[in-house]
């Protein structure tokens, strides 16, 4: 059997490496799940202490990318590391801001209650939210400019204020990596400034934020890095280098029909 032991391994594989320092390193991640946009083979290492925009057209898989990182959507292949370890072991270092429309805002809780939810994991099972923690929640609300609205029921807040409540909930987690799904969608100017202020604040303390962003006009003003996505990673890097007309044209220049078609088949094969 000498010849079969000498069987040449097809030379089309490669070794896995992870920069330990990266707050988020996505390695060859493919997601094809049930009517969600497919994302192909994303390979990305986020730089530390930067504001990173995820930009792409509708159905490009921006939210799916974030959800796959958070294990909310199963991956077909690939690996995600947060500060060098799998996400499940690093939950306390990650804060997530879902889309505002993902919850029912008629729910009977106050702004402060929602922010306190960010503290639940640190509190642990069955422990009630005590004064000390409520104070933390109010501080976070203060940071987003909603100190006066702490006791207000969430349906009585404007859309922008609701978004800021979600942001405060992430802030209170005191994480190192922030994943935000469309925080700037449909908010007023005051909220936009408040969110931006918080983001800059985070950057100055060495935190990293990945933000799904839809407004191309403001990308260069708000973000240091940009990740252009349309079913696949088009380009990623410092905004000044990557956010070019050429790259944008490639991102927004329509979907690749074959990528779409094969992706649908792959998703069906996963079920």
């Amino acid at each position: 059997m000498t010849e079969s032991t000498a069987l040449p391994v097809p030379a089309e594989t490669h070794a896995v490496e992870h920069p330990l320092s990266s707050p988020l390193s996505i390695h060859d991640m493919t997601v094809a799940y049930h009517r969600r946009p497919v994302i192909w083979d994303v390979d990305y290492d986020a730089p530390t202490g930067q504001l990173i925009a995820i930009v792409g057209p509708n159905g490009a898989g921006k939210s799916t990318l974030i959800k796959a990182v958070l294990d909310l959507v199963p991956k077909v292949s690939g690996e995600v590391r947060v500060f060098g370890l799998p996400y499940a072991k690093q939950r306390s270092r990650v804060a997530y801001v879902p889309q505002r429309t993902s919850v029912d805002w008629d729910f009977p809780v106050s702004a402060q209650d929602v922010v306190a939810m960010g503290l639940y994991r640190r509190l642990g099972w069955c422990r009630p939210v005590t004064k000390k923690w409520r104070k933390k929640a109010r501080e976070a609300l203060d940071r987003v400019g909603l100190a006066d609205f702490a006791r207000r029921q969430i349906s009585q807040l404007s859309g922008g204020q609701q978004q800021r409540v979600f942001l405060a909930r992430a802030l209170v987690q005191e994480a190192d990596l922030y994943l935000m799904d469309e925080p700037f969608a449909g908010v007023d100017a005051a909220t936009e400034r408040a969110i931006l202020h918080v983001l800059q604040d985070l950057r100055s303390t060495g935190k990293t934020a990945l933000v799904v962003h839809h407004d191309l006009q403001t990308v260069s003003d708000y973000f240091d890095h940009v990740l252009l996505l349309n079913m696949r990673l088009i380009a990623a890097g410092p905004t000044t280098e990557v956010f070019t007309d050429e790259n944008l044209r490639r991102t927004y220049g329509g979907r690749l029909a074959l990528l779409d078609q094969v992706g649908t088949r792959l998703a069906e094969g996963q079920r």
Partner: protein
Amino acid sequence: MSAMLAMAMCVGGGLEAFGKGSLQIANCKLQIVDCAIPLVRELCLGTHPQGTHPRGTSLLCVPSCELPVLAAESVWLVKQGISKDAFPNRVRERGWSRVAVCTGRPQRPIRNLQFAICSLQSSFPDRMPFAQPSPPIFSRLLRVLSLRDYNTRVVLLGTTLLGITAGVVGTFMLLRKRALVGDVVGHSALPGIAVAFLVMEGVSPGTGKSLPGLLTGAFVFGLAGAVSVMLIGRYSRIKPDAAMAMTLSVFYGLGAALFTIVQKVPGGNAAGLKTFLNGKTASLTADDVWLFASVAAVVLTLTMLLLKELTLLCFDDQFAAAEGWPVFGLDTLLIGLVVTVTIIGLQSVGLILVVATLIIPPASARFWTDDIRWMTLGAGLVGGLSSFGGTVMSALFPHVAAGAVIVLTGACLFTVSLCFGAQQGVAIHWLRQRKLRRDVGRVDLLRAMFELLEHQTREAVPTLEQIVVREFSLADLLPMRSWEPGAVRGLLSIAARDGLVRAAGHDVWQLTPSGAEEARRVVRNHRLWEMYLTQYAHIAPSHVDRDADLIEHVLDPDLIAELSRQLEHAEDDVPASSHTTGGGSQAPD
């Protein structure tokens, strides 16, 4: 449909016979049922001459739970072609006794046995010849409320506890948007009761009606029902609403079939099992109440301990999952709590209406508060109150089913909450709407006056003095907006009450100094918004006005400040309109 007819026709005839006391009762605990098995046979085989109710037919005395058996039996008899003479043996085997003779008027057709049976049965209790005269209602009420009877105390305590627990657990189910799962659980419990009875009778005859055993069976099947809904949703394309309706009726159908069987098990006395259907508080014993109390204590403690986890689950399950909370586990726990509460609630309201004790209290409580903690407490309160009230009523009026009254008490509380709830009630909502409408009207009025002045003085910004001296007639104001004279008069009178305008003659009005100040303020807000929209939202100026009308009523002070900053206007300046005829128009491009 003749079944229905028969029901109506029984109104007179045969029943009156009972009322006249022509009925002999062997055992007062048994209920009276029609004679009709041989009758059916005759009718079906066509041996009876006119298809009418013959005088002098035997009446059977059958425990009420065996009605379906009796019906099936009649079919069986017909099939077997058993003669009338063999029937008494059949009766003896079953342990039914022949007790009375119907002296109903002859020639009255009773074409449907089923409802003939039913009609007699349900009408009889009120006509019991030996029924004792009851004391006046007031003294009965006093007796119930003063908890003088040990039994009353026990029953009231038990049902009130159940009501509280169901309300508390139901809160989370309602907020998780799965309110109707309780309905599925309740109906699914039916076969569990039958199976538990069969198993216990099989293991040791005579023990079939031990309550903990029956409740265990109900629990297992109730849980199975909830799980089936989940599985169907997961493994097929069937939508959750259809999955619920389906599970509910299949389990219930199984229960209905098994109950027919249960009643035929020899030696097994299944009487009383059906109290689970509609609930029967009167049959609660102290032991049962202790069981409920301990279960309720466990459920309430768990809910209180996990208040924050359950809140998170109901509010934002995706965030909870991202945070590493076991969403599936918490969901399962919640379902488990609901099943537990539903099962112990069967005794008080019955399995068909038990869902009401899960939904109505939290839905009522929601109208009173915007805080989940208060809502939970409120739901417990409403649940407890309606159970207490319902039980008292059913104790007062012996033939009123407790379950129905408990639900109806809850429904009354719900209606009151819906109308007068302090936070979300219809009344408060209507008041808020009216206030908003009045605010809008006031702003429109003031702005119309200001613009009129601006238009006529041909000056960009009228001074306060100019505003105050100007008199406005109704005819001036009417063309400013598309409004009716009556509406304008109404707005003016409200504004006069608020001290913003004062009457200067018939249909002639003047702004007061504070009204002038207010007019300047609202016009400024309006114009700022117009400018903002034209500059930032790329809306053509002619379309601005309508949007601004709607949105200026919701502008926050901080947004106004923001607009002022962006538009670089001095704080007290009223910017000129971008499309009015007033001078100084500086429409942005």
